[in-house]
């Protein structure tokens, strides 16, 4: 049996949305808990406890990961971008703007994860995305409101806008 009655805290130091942060944490702390509870970055959501919904997607060293299925200590030394890190100077990121313009959300719970996955998708496939590529690559993000149609439209529009604006990918 485990005798881990005294929790040995471990130090972590990482960059979140361009800012360096460090803390001593219980190793059990999930990255999403660290973001939401330690750093008060509550834009990253938790929609399930089975690693299936994608509401918690953030970028870890530039690639999409589920922050509910990553320990904060695993991100030690890494760079994390959350939904809060996308907008620059009070101006929405083109992908955020596209979701607003195209009615890509209803309750909005899945939206942070959708947008982080969408930005990752543009990084991999470029700004000209067809519907099949978008649908296939968002299959780890579940939305129970929209029926996905407007999400796909938003991602296509946001990708195109990112291409024409050569928008900076915020803190990355």
């Amino acid at each position, binding site marked *: *049996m485990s005798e*881990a009655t005294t929790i040995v805290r471990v130090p972590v130091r990482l960059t979140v949305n361009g800012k360096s942060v460090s803390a001593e944490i219980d*190793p*059990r702390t999930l990255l999403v808990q660290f973001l939401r509870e330690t750093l008060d970055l509550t834009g990253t959501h938790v929609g399930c*406890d089975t690693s299936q919904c994608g509401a918690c997607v953030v970028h870890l060293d530039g690639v*999409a*990961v589920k922050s509910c299925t990553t320990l904060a200590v*695993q991100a030690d030394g890494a760079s994390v971008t959350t939904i809060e890190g996308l907008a620059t100077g009070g101006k929405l990121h083109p992908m955020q703007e596209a979701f607003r313009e195209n009615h890509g959300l209803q309750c909005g719970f899945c939206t942070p994860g959708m947008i982080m996955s969408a930005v990752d998708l543009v990084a991999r496939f470029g700004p000209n995305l067809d519907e099949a590529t978008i649908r296939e690559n968002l*299959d780890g993000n579940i939305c129970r409101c929209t029926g996905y149609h407007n999400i796909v439209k938003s991602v296509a529009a946001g990708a195109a806008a990112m291409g024409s604006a050569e928008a900076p990918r915020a803190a990355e």
Partner: protein
Amino acid sequence: MYAFDYQRPDAIAAAAAILSADPEAKALAGGQTLLPTLKQRLAQPTALVDLSRIPELSGICATTEGVSIGAMTRHADVAASELVRAAIPALADLAGMIGDVAVRNRGTIGGSLANDDPTADYPAAVLALNATVVTDRRSIGASDFFRGLFETALKEGEIITRVDFPKVEKAGYAKFRNPASRYAMAGVFVAKTAAEVRVAVTGAGQSGVFLWTEAGDILSSDFSVQAVSGLALDPSNLMSDLHGSAEYRAQLAKVMLKRALASITG
């Protein structure tokens, strides 16, 4: 999650030392199976030994026989690897079909094989290609490695370091995904060498991945989709669950076999 100690060694020997000193410590690779298990409190390891900062465990290299993939190599890196695609394109395709993007960015080949989920994808490739699983202490042939549901030949504390895949003449993989979990309802990997054809089935067997020897025998003498048209998989050792009956899986496996063949023979 129950509490655990966290260790992050930077060499295989150091990781092995921790794991063999404490039988209740567990290796942590991508965490895409282990962390959900811990969150549900289905396991209570004393310590997690994070393998991610051990450089020898990651990376892909071409070998004279084929391609060698480090245990900590992420599914996304295998899917995108030119070396893997040049040696065994079906293996790169398979890696790209695992889970979703975010799972592929974290999950590793070593973690998938050590876990040996009966519906996981890599076991089908490893068995059909007759790959060798290399650990910190020995090499294990594919036919000896898989031992049943979530059971492998790995001894306590043994660490997979890499998997050596031999090049084959032709290979193909087709998978019918469970739309909710994305794991295989039936996945069939076909590999053809000069000597023989091996067909492995995942997702369907009651005791995990298995070789469909009858299909392999027929295809060894006639490598075509037509050759297997009269073939049927015996459902008596297949899984029945809420997702589908054994008979349904038998039929799915046959359809996946034909699709895998069609992807090779055109």
